[in-house]
């Protein structure tokens, strides 16, 4: 029996809510007493003027249809937010360095430079000292979002709002089906990937690496069973991506080894209409860059055709020596599964819970196309050992395999068309190197937040002074 008390965890950590809409409110604490009172009520089931913070339920059970709330409400605090609420300096010092410094200060490590640099971030992310809390509301209607928004706005100075929504079939703007594979905790069985220990996301619990424990900030009531979140606003350059697929497909179409990329007699559709060879090669490039076909099927499981996702296991696979899934693909970089990697003890140790929804289109004068993208949450017990470790060595440097070292993730890496490269795998084990693709995803803003447990929120509400 699990010794985790799920009623004392915020509900957005171990599972997704599967609502259609989200609103992230970026808040500043301008009246400490009012905010403490707000949090006290919110953590005790809410009130007439204060929304209840949604708690986790036994995660092997879904909400019965008649019990699903109209909205869910959760909070994360930045380091500035903890300080604004009056956490003692000695306790603040026990939070890990990367969280204390904040996301903007870690920009170079995260690949946030050039157009993604913090100085180019949109409001309010260009004033990170003003962002104390990120309040996330999930619902199926704007009216429900507005209702909670109004309640929250009474207690905080609202510095920004970001609205997101789920695209049909869990798609993201590049056309991929997303959120297929997540860390699986002890309650779910999986035949291929090992169970992730709760310490992957909950401070104070054992981690994947035997004996290794992430520091729990003090006091214990504040740190225990909390976790960290990298909240990112990621712009997706859809036109550039689709144009590059066109260009790459033409290159592969005319390449002498074209038949080794895709059999000459291959025939498949995009789910709606049959594709010509150029169209199919576009999908091959998209699939190899991601590691999944755009309909969600793992590329390595079916490299010569894009099958119906209902006909193929979507998570039960591994990366063996002969896998056609490129080691430089996005999915294989972020989770190498059981495949051989340079950092021999690091398989399965940098897992992240990902929760994201799309945003946009936002029309800005002078912008060549409306802005669309993803509001992403990357949750883990250690920002340094999980989020930053993936972003730095795996996603943007490719240290995990000598064949990709020096190249960035083709989909979300900090690429520039002058230096980027990606090796498309061939049926005979060889590769064709694609070059010249720009950065397809740029960072528009972000903050590191601490997602406290329910006792921790009540502790914050009780602080004096």
């Amino acid at each position: 029996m699990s010794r985790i008390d799920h009623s004392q965890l915020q509900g957005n950590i171990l599972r997704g809510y599967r609502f259609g809409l989200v609103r992230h409110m970026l808040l500043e604490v301008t009246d400490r007493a009012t905010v403490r009172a707000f949090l006290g009520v919110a953590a005790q089931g809410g009130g007439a003027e204060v929304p209840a913070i949604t708690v986790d339920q036994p995660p092997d059970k879904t909400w019965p249809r008649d019990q699903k709330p109209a909205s869910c409400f959760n909070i994360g605090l930045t380091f500035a937010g903890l300080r604004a609420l009056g956490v003692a300096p000695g306790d603040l010092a026990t939070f890990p360095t990367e969280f204390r410094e904040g996301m903007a200060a870690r920009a170079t490590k995260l690949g946030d430079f050039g157009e993604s640099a913090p100085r180019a971030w949109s409001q309010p992310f260009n004033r990170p000292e003003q962002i104390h809390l990120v309040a996330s509301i999930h619902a199926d209607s704007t009216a429900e979002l507005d209702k909670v928004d109004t309640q929250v706005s009474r207690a905080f100075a609202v510095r920004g709002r970001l609205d997101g929504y789920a695209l049909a079939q869990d798609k993201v703007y590049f056309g991929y089906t997303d959120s297929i594979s997540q860390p699986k905790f002890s309650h779910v069985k999986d035949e291929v990937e090992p169970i992730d220990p709760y310490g992957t996301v909950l401070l104070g619990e054992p981690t994947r690496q035997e004996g290794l424990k992430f520091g729990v900030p003090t006091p214990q009531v504040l740190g225990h069973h909390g976790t960290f979140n990298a909240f990112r606003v990621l712009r997706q350059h859809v036109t550039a991506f689709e144009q590059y697929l066109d260009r790459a497909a033409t290159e592969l179409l005319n390449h002498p080894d074209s038949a080794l990329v895709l059999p000459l007699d291959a025939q498949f559709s995009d789910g709606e209409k049959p594709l010509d060879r150029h169209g199919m090669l576009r999908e091959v490039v998209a699939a190899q860059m991601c590691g999944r076909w755009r309909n969600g099927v793992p590329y390595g499981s079916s490299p010569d055709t894009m099958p119906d996702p209902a006909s193929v296991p979507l998570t039960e696979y591994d990366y063996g020596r002969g896998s056609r899934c490129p080691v430089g693909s996005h999915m294989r970089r972020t989770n190498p599964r059981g495949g051989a990697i340079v950092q021999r003890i690091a398989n399965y140790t940098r897992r992240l819970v990902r929760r994201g929804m799309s945003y946009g289109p936002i029309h800005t004068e002078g912008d060549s196309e409306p802005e669309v993208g993803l509001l992403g949450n990357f949750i883990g017990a250690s920002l340094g050992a999980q989020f930053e470790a993936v972003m730095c060595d795996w996603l943007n440097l490719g240290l995990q395999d000598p064949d990709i070292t020096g190249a960035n993730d083709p989909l979300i890496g900090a690429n520039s068309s002058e230096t980027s490269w990606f090796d498309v795998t061939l049926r005979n084990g060889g590769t064709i190197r694609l070059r010249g693709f720009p950065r397809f995803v740029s960072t528009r803003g972000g903050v590191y937040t601490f997602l406290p447990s329910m006792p921790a929120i009540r502790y914050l509400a009780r602080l004096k002074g």
Partner: protein
Amino acid sequence: MQRKAGWLDKFVDDLPSQGWFQFLSRHLVVPYWIWRDPKPVLPGGPRPSVQPSESVQRMMNLIMPLKDPSPIGRARAALAISQNVDEIFAGLDNVGTVHNARFLLLDGNICMLSVYDGDFSNYIRDFIATIGSVFDAVMKEVEGGDAMVPTTEHIEEFIDWVCAHDLFQAPDIATDLFNLQDAAKGIAPGSLPHDLRLLPRELILQLHSNPNISLGGGYRAYPGYSAAQVRQKFGVGW
């Protein structure tokens, strides 16, 4: 056309070799400037870089002060390494990104010098995850080390501690020192004008705050490939 040096130029140029001027600088001018413009201690280890395409290799020059710097204390530290050397080397091997590492006893310090690839924190974390219990024997001989034993349960503190005891790596381009000093004071690099002629003074003041430093990126006999790339080229497996 270059102006011919006059007597005043010659006098000023000759000052650094004058004993009275050296005495004055050492005992009056430098202490005054240390008081007037103290420099924050610059952080140790490699600085994050945008695209390390030229070299993925990084240096660590970890200087760990011994609790007991006497010959007895130094012998204990030497034993802590030699008795565990196989495990330590196996641990470094499992990290996968380490080119070479060696240990020195230098005055009252035990030093670990290594060349590794990529991110510093990942290197240290994976090293401790692999052989933390063995490395604890070394940490018990080090000043302040007891508070971090077992290192597997103080991993974030240990990484910060190693960073603080890794030598500051002086930039290869000397004028970058201005930006690093500004950044340490929270001033955006490049936002303040700096007089190039003051660079020697800034260096002297910095060496007061960081007495031991690593001078530049050092020499490499071959391009900055990763350890795995080198091993792959030699066909010895990675």
